[in-house]
C-alpha cells in the first residue's frame, strides 16, 4: 500500500517476527517504580501511562472466558455511566456523573467512602466530564465539571487540594476526559470545542502548584504563530479533550490536540493553524515543546488529533524501537518515532474515506477536500469521526492494535463566520450526518506498523465503547445494546457476552485482588457518537435499552465450598 514509505516498509518487514514477542521495557527501574503500571492494578484511565489499555493478567483467558459470571454490581444512582474506574491495591475508584466519586472494595463493591462535589450552574452539559481519574502519592486526581483539578486522599476521601484551572464561565471549558500521572506531576487537558486557546497543564501532584502550562497555539513572537491570522490565534481552539500518555525514560508527555476554530470554515483562518490537529511531545519537567506532528493542517472537517497517543516498544535486533501510534478521527492512523516525532508509517483504519487521496511519504494528506461556503459535499468520515473518545487497545502479546470504525459520512458545508469572543461556539458550517453508503461499521485487529488487518468483525451499528485487551488473549468491549463482550484477540471470534441492560460507552477494565481476576464493565450509554444511532440506524435503535448507570464486575466461578451449595 502506498501509504508507507518504501524504506520504512522494508524496515517494518524485518520487525514483523519480533513484534509478536514485543515486551515493555523500562530502562530506569527507579522511574518505573514511581510510574503506575498495570499488573494486578488498573491504575489509570488507559491502564498504565502508555495508553495501551492492556493488562498482563491472564487468569481469565480465551479458554475459560465463557464461564465468566457476575461477581458484583454497583449502581451509582446517576443516570449514565461514561466513567472508566481505576483500581489500586484492591480498591476501586469510580467517578460517576455529577462529580460523584466512590471508593469501593474491588472484590465486592462495598462502599468505603463516597463524595459528591457541588456543581454550579452553567457547566458543560455533562457529557464527557466525570470520566477519568489519575492516582499517585496516595492521592486521587479528579477533573471537575466546573473545571477544577482536585486532589482527594484515596484512603479517606477527604480533599487535599483544589485548584481552579480556568473559570468555566469564561472559557466554556472543562477538564479533559482524564488527567494522567507524569512522574511527580499530574497533567490535564482543557475540553471545550469553542473559541478558546487550548492548553495542557501540569500541576505538582503533592501541592497542586501549577508546574507549567503549554498553550497549543503559539503566542505572537513564538515559532508557529505565523500559521494563524493575527486576530484569531488566541481563540483558535485546539481542545485537548481526551487524555495523554507519558514515557518516563524520555520524560516526555504526549497529548493529542483537537481541531481549530471556527470549526468547519478553514478559509477564515488561512495557514497551518499550529498545533491544532497535532500530536505534541512535551518535556514533563518544563512543558516545553520537544516535537510536534501535525496530521491535518488548516483542517475544515473537525478531524481532531485528540485520541490517545499509544506508546509501543518494539524489540528489534536487541534494541527497543520506541514508537507512538495515534488514530485520528479522519480515519487514518499514524506511527511516529516518539523520541523525535519523525513519521514512520500511516494507514487507514476506516473503510470509507473520501476526504483525501491517501498520505504522501511524510504522512501528509494528498489533495485533501475542504468545505465550501454554502455548498454541501458528502465527506467521509463525518465530523463524528471514524472513531472518537472510544480508545483503542494494543496487545504486546499479540502485537496487534484493536480499533473500531463508525463508518459514517456527512453532507458538510462551510457557512459565513461570525466574529466571536472567547467561549463562543463558532461552527462556521453545518453538517447532515448519514451512514456510509457502501460500508459497515466494524472492529478490527491491525498490524500496527503496516495497517494490515488480521481480522475484521462487522458490527450492526457503531461500537462506541473503548476496547481493552489482556494477556489472556482477549479483547473486551461493549455495544450500544448493552452487551458486554469478549473477543478472541487472534481471530475476533466472540467468546462471551452478557446483557447489562443498558448501552456501553465506557471502557472495560481488568484487575486482580488476592489472586482472583475481575473484569469490570461500566453500563450506561453516553457521548456524541451514540446520539447518531437513533437517527442513522432507526431499525437497530429500537433494540437500544433505556439508559442506566451500573457497573458490572465479572469473575470466574470460585472453586471450593461455594461449589458445594
Amino acid at each position, binding site marked *: 500500500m502506498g501509504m508507507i514509505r518504501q524504506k520504512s516498509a522494508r524496515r517494518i518487514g524485518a520487525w514483523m517476527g519480533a513484534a509478536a514477542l514485543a515486551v515493555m521495557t523500562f530502562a530506569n527501574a527507579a522511574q518505573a517504580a514511581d510510574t503506575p503500571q498495570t499488573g494486578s492494578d488498573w491504575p489509570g484511565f488507559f491502564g498504565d501511562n502508555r495508553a495501551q489499555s492492556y493488562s498482563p493478567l491472564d487468569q481469565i483467558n480465551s479458554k475459560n472466558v465463557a464461564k465468566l459470571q457476575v461477581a458484583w454490581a454497583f449502581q451509582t444512582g446517576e443516570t449514565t455511566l461514561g466513567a472508566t474506574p481505576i483500581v489500586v491495591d484492591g480498591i476501586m475508584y469510580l467517578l460517576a456523573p455529577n462529580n460523584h466519586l466512590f471508593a469501593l472494595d474491588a472484590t465486592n463493591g462495598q462502599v468505603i467512602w463516597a463524595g459528591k462535589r457541588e456543581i454550579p450552574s452553567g457547566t458543560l452539559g455533562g457529557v464527557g466530564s466525570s470520566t477519568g481519574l489519575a492516582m499517585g502519592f496516595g492521592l486521587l486526581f479528579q477533573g471537575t465539571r466546573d473545571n477544577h483539578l482536585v486532589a482527594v486522599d484515596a484512603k479517606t476521601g477527604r*480533599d487535599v487540594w483544589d485548584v481552579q484551572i480556568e473559570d468555566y464561565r469564561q472559557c466554556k471549558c472543562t477538564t479533559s476526559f482524564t488527567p494522567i500521572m507524569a512522574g511527580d506531576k499530574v497533567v490535564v487537558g482543557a475540553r471545550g470545542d469553542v473559541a478558546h486557546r487550548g492548553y495542557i497543564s501540569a500541576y505538582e501532584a503533592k501541592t497542586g502548584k501549577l508546574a507549567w502550562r503549554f498553550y497549543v497555539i503559539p503566542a505572537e513572537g513564538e515559532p508557529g504563530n505565523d500559521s494563524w491570522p493575527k486576530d484569531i490565534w488566541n481563540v483558535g481552539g485546539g481542545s485537548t479533550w481526551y487524555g495523554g500518555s507519558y514515557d518516563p525514560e524520555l520524560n516526555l508527555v504526549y497529548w493529542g490536540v483537537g481541531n481549530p476554530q471556527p470549526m468547519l470554515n478553514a478559509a477564515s483562518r488561512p495557514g497551518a493553524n499550529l498545533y491544532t490537529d497535532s500530536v505534541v511531545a512535551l518535556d514533563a519537567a518544563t512543558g516545553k515543546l520537544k516535537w510536534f506532528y501535525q496530521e491535518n493542517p488548516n483542517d475544515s472537517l473537525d478531524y481532531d488529533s485528540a485520541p490517545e497517543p499509544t506508546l509501543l516498544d518494539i524489540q528489534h535486533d536487541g534494541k527497543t524501537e520506541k514508537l507512538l501510534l495515534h488514530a485520528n478521527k479522519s480515519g487514518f492512523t499514524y506511527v511516529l518515532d516518539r523520541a523525535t516525532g519523525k513519521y514512520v508509517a500511516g494507514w487507514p483504519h476506516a473503510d470509507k474515506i473520501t476526504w483525501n487521496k491517501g498520505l504522501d511519504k511524510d504522512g501528509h494528506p494528498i489533495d485533501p477536500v475542504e468545505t465550501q461556503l454554502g455548498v454541501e459535499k458528502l465527506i467521509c468520515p463525518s465530523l463524528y469521526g471514524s472513531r472518537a473518545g472510544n480508545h483503542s487497545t494494543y496487545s504486546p502479546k499479540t502485537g496487534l492494535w484493536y480499533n473500531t470504525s463508525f463508518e459514517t459520512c456527512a453532507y458538510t458545508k462551510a457557512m459565513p463566520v461570525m466574529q466571536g469572543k472567547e467561549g463562543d461556539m463558532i461552527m462556521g458550517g453545518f453538517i447532515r450526518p448519514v451512514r456510509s453508503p457502501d460500508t459497515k461499521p466494524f472492529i478490527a485487529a491491525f498490524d500496527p506498523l503496516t495497517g494490515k488487518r488480521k481480522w475484521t468483525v462487522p458490527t450492526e451499528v457503531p461500537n462506541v465503547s473503548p476496547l481493552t485487551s489482556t494477556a489472556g488473549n482477549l479483547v473486551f468491549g461493549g455495544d450500544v445494546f448493552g452487551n458486554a463482550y469478549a473477543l478472541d484477540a487472534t481471530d475476533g471470534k466472540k467468546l462471551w457476552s452478557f446483557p447489562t441492560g443498558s448501552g456501553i460507552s465506557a471502557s472495560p477494565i481488568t484487575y486482580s485482588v488476592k489472586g482472583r481476576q475481575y473484569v469490570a464493565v461500566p453500563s450506561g450509554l453516553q457521548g*456524541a457518537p451514540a446520539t447518531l444511532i437513533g437517527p442513522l440506524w432507526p431499525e437497530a435503535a429500537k433494540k437500544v435499552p433505556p439508559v442506566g448507570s451500573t457497573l458490572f464486575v465479572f469473575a470466574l466461578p470460585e472453586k471450593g465450598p461455594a461449589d458445594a451449595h
Partner: protein
Amino acid sequence: MRTKLAIAALAALAASRAVAAPAAQEMMQGGNVFAITCSSSFCHGEGGVGARGPSLLNRNFAPDFVRSTVTNGRSGTPMPSFKDSLSAHEIDLVVDYVMSLSPNNHNAGAGPAAPAPASAPPPTPLNKQAEAGRKVFFDLARTGSCAACHSYKQEGGPIGADLTGVAKRTPHDLYKAITKPTVPDADYPVATVTAGGTTVTGIVKQKTEKIVQLYDLSSVPPVLRSFYPADGIKVGDAAATTPIYAHDLSGYSKDELASVIAFLKSAAGPSKDVTPQELAQP
C-alpha cells in the same frame, strides 16, 4: 426531568417520556432530527441539556418563537438559520420536540410570537482600551493574572474581592490598590498551617474544629489546600506584614495596568480611555 433526557436520541427512541401530543412516532422523528441537527456534541447538547449553546430544558418558549429561531436563526448569536437545511416538516418536528422539553409550559398554547429572552441584553461594548484590559484581567497565561484570584461580574477567581464594584473609584486610587494593596486586610485573614513538616501560609477560607482551608498564593492559580486538625496540625496567625497580598506585576506594563483600570471602570458606564497621567495624579 433533566436526568431523563440525558440522551436525546435514546430518550426519543425509548419514547418513555410522557408526552401527550404529538404522537410518539413524530416525537421520535423530532428527537432524531434534533439529535442530528441541534444537539450534536457542539451545540444544544444531548436532549437539549446545553453543551456550548444554551440549554433548552424547561425554557417555556412559545412555539412561534422556537419556529422563528430555528427558521431564521438569532442574529448576534451563533444560532444559524435552518431554512435551507431542514424541510418545513422537519422544522415542525424540531419545534414540537423542543416544546416537549418544557413539560409544564404555560406558553405552550399557540399565541403570538412571545419573545422568550434567551439571555440578558448584550452589554454595552467596551472600547478598545477597556477590551484590551478585559483580556489582561482574564488572561491566565500571565503570572499574577487578576482573574486567578479576583472576579468581575462573578467571573474569575473566588479568592480576592469581586471587582465589579470598584468602577467609581479614580484611576489613581485603583492604580494604588493594584501596585500597593492594603496590608493587612481584615476581610482576608492570613494563617499558617504546619502539617507533616511543611508550613503553608495562605488566606483563610474556613477554619473550624474539623477543617482548616487556606488559599496558598505561592503559585498562580492559587491552590485551595485543606488540613484536618484531627491529623495533629499546627495552626498559627501569620505576621500582619506578610507580603502575601502583594501583586506580582513584573510582567505588566503601565499601559496594560491602565487598560485594566479602564476595563474595571467600564462597569459604571460606557468605557473611557485611562491615560498613564491619570494613574499618577490623585
